[in-house]
């Protein structure tokens, strides 16, 4: 087990290196000049040139990449060009907000999807089954940004129940944050919700057909005990895996959700940085997200092996 974990962690290094190359190349290929963006219309050409020198944008690309990599190894993500602050500080401000949003969405998704999936499986081919699974397909097809706008239209503009944008502030109490959280987390939860419902249903179906369930039923145990006690826990394993895989999707969805709801998270931070040509922020932010992503996947894989020791983990993990 330990050997497996160490091996997996070592395997992350080339992946992250690859990410660093890709992100570096992309940020340097993007046309535009952060110095000009910072100084605005009244700046003289000389002022822009001087700032470029100061920011180290005139150095050869290889030197810039070397510097980036060296700092990365030291855990330093550099200084944001647009904000004059360490990139890591900006990330540490924004990332918890994204986590909060993603976690709330995951929560909503799970709470709705698991019961729906179970009922659909137990009452396979019923109207409820067809209806909810069709709805799940609609959910998978949902453009998050559109759903977000529609939620704003109905709940903020028409009914004025929830604020449309922003995150609120703890100073106004926890309720303020929660009321700001409702719409974006619902928008973000649709796709995972639909996926979870489908997975729960299919793995439930598989479990129900197993012998020990039949035995349990034959013993005359009440149906809900059979389902709740025996079937449910066994069908949780695939759900856990899917949850892990959903993280990347959630981060992508979060980029769009955060843009629509002006949620001060990582997605907005990076999109904003791209717009401002803040290369340091973009490369630092993307590296950070990629790191989180591979770590979450690793943890999910390890959990998976832990919950399911029958799996031969030496063959897992892309080798």
């Amino acid at each position, binding site marked *: 087990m330990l050997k497996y974990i160490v091996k997996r962690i070592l395997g992350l290094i080339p992946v992250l290196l690859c990410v660093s190359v890709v992100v570096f190349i992309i940020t340097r290929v993007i046309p*535009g000049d952060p110095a000009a963006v910072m100084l605005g219309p*009244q*700046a003289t050409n000389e002022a822009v040139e001087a700032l470029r020198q100061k920011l180290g944008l005139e150095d050869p690309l290889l030197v810039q990449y070397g510097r980036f990599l060296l700092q990365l190894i030291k855990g330093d993500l550099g200084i944001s060009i647009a904000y004059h602050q360490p990139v890591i500080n900006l990330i540490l401000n924004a990332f918890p907000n994204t986590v909060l949003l993603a976690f709330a969405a995951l929560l909503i998704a799970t709470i709705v999807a698991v019961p729906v999936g179970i009922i659909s499986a137990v009452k396979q081919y019923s109207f409820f089954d067809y209806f909810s699974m069709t709805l799940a397909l609609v959910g998978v097809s949902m453009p998050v940004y559109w759903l977000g706008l529609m939620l704003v239209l109905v709940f903020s503009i028409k009914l004025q129940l929830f604020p*449309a944008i922003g995150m609120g502030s703890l100073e106004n109490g926890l309720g303020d944050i929660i009321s700001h959280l409702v719409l974006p987390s619902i928008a973000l939860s649709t796709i995972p919700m639909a996926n979870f419902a489908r997975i729960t249903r299919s793995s439930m179906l598989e479990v129900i057909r197993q012998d020990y369930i039949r035995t349990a039923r034959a013993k005359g145990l009440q149906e809900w005990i059979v389902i709740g006690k025996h079937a449910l826990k066994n069908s949780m394993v695939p759900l856990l895996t899917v949850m892990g895989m959903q993280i990347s999707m959630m981060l992508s969805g979060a980029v769009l959700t955060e843009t629509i709801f002006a949620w001060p998270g990582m997605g907005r931070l990076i999109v904003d940085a791209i717009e401002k040509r803040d290369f340091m922020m973009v490369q630092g932010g993307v590296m950070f997200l990629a790191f989180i992503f591979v770590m979450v996947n690793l943890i999910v894989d390890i959990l998976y092996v832990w919950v399911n020791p029958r799996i031969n983990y030496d063959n897992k993990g892309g080798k």
Partner: protein
Amino acid sequence: MKRKTKVTFLLIFTIIMTLLVVGCQGTNKPENDNKEKPDTTGPQDGGQLVVGLSQVPKTLDPVKYTGTYESNIMNSIYDTLVAWTDDQQKIVGSLATDWKVSDNLLEYTFTLRDNVYFHDGKYVKGRKLTAEDVKYSLERSATQSAMGRLSDLKEAVVVDEETVKLILKQPNAAFLARLTDPGNGIVPKEEVEGWGDEFGQHPVGTGPFVFDSWAKDDNVTLVRNEKYWVTKPHLEKLVFKFIPDQAMMSNALLSGDIDIATDVAGPDRQKLKADKNITIQTMPGMNVYFAAMNMQKGPTADIRVRKAIAYALDVDAAVKNIFQFGGATRAYLPLPKKSWGYDPALEELAIKERNVEKAKELLKEAGYENGFKTTIVTPNKPYRVKWAQIMQTQLAEVGIQADIEKLEWGSYSDKVSKGEAPIYLLAWTWFPDPDFFLFQFFHKAQIGRLGNGQGFLDEEVSALIDEAKASTIDQDKRKALYKQVMEKAMAQVPRVEGWHKENINGIRNRVQDYNICPDDQVRIVTQERNVWVKQ
């Protein structure tokens, strides 16, 4: 057995999550605090004022700041030698009581006020302002300003304790306007050198408010300067809150979270107007939005083509469409309406009415009977992107096929400066002195820079601009010269003027004595005003 535990763990986890959500749904959202406060007469001391700004400032160091959202705060922390009146029609003394300008416009000598003290900082404790401070601050700006805000200054000479002489590199009648910029505010040397790079996070000046704290990405809080030389500010506390979204800003104003909303969007205006606790103030802005045509190369180098384009565009319809909910007036001159150089008589020189037939005729004369292909270059700003689309349609009707190139600011300014943009949409906003517009747009020295990216080249116009800048500081004489500049420039139809954007502020009624300024800068305590709030 072990596996069972793990699965149980997962189950319990799920249940806890469920409970959490159920629990959360019970909480209420905060209520708006819209209680009416008892009315009293006369200014009241105390209380706090919260101003919403649409962007997060990065630094409050005069030489480092780059954005108007930063100067909005700096106006209350620093003082400058001279300042605009609140309506921005005249320059009056501030830290300087009086000044003399040499006949060759090369030397400006200032007499300083003798009752000005710095705020308490970490390194200075209420020290008196001296001539040395002025010399230090202005020379620092001359050499270090990120925007070259005082690049005209050669050196500052301390004549005596109360007199400073500024020597310029070349004669400049518009020099005083430069000095009004908070970027040329007076700072204490000890603090600047003590904090080093962090001075911008711990600013110290002589202004009406003292820097207190900075909550990153959320607000900057200032407190009253008890010893302010003009008067003691009524407000105890002044908070600038950063709300980077226009809709959020309006909501914050409605809920009373902020007292003044800067940057109100068109559609929000109605919503705010409907609330009886809120007043909307508007003011034609110190800006002009325009479409400039390349005069060096391409079809637009021909004046007939430029005229044809001017006739082909229906600017009235465009402005009416883009600002359906108000917020701008059509422009006719390359100068803001609030600039002292503006002369309504010149409006008649502009092509005002659309005339498709005439446009086609002119194109035919110029040899473009079948039209031509061109590109409209615009930065990625909503109003201008919309105008570009409307222009594209209107130009197509006379046979001109225009492509729209929407660029990020850096690429845009680079392309325009190099004279590579056939038609480009630019917004210009600066000091009311016409020099900050007409010199930038039409002087030959500015070819290769953003302002004159179209390559407008006319020796006579350049000479007139020089004369207006270097021969006199008499405003009337200069105004007459600038009138000639505009007449001569407009005769060549170098550009199509778009609109002057209005500054729109939303203000809660408890705020008294506050008025929006033409440059859209927030000013709380000046020689003419001392904002207070009803409690």
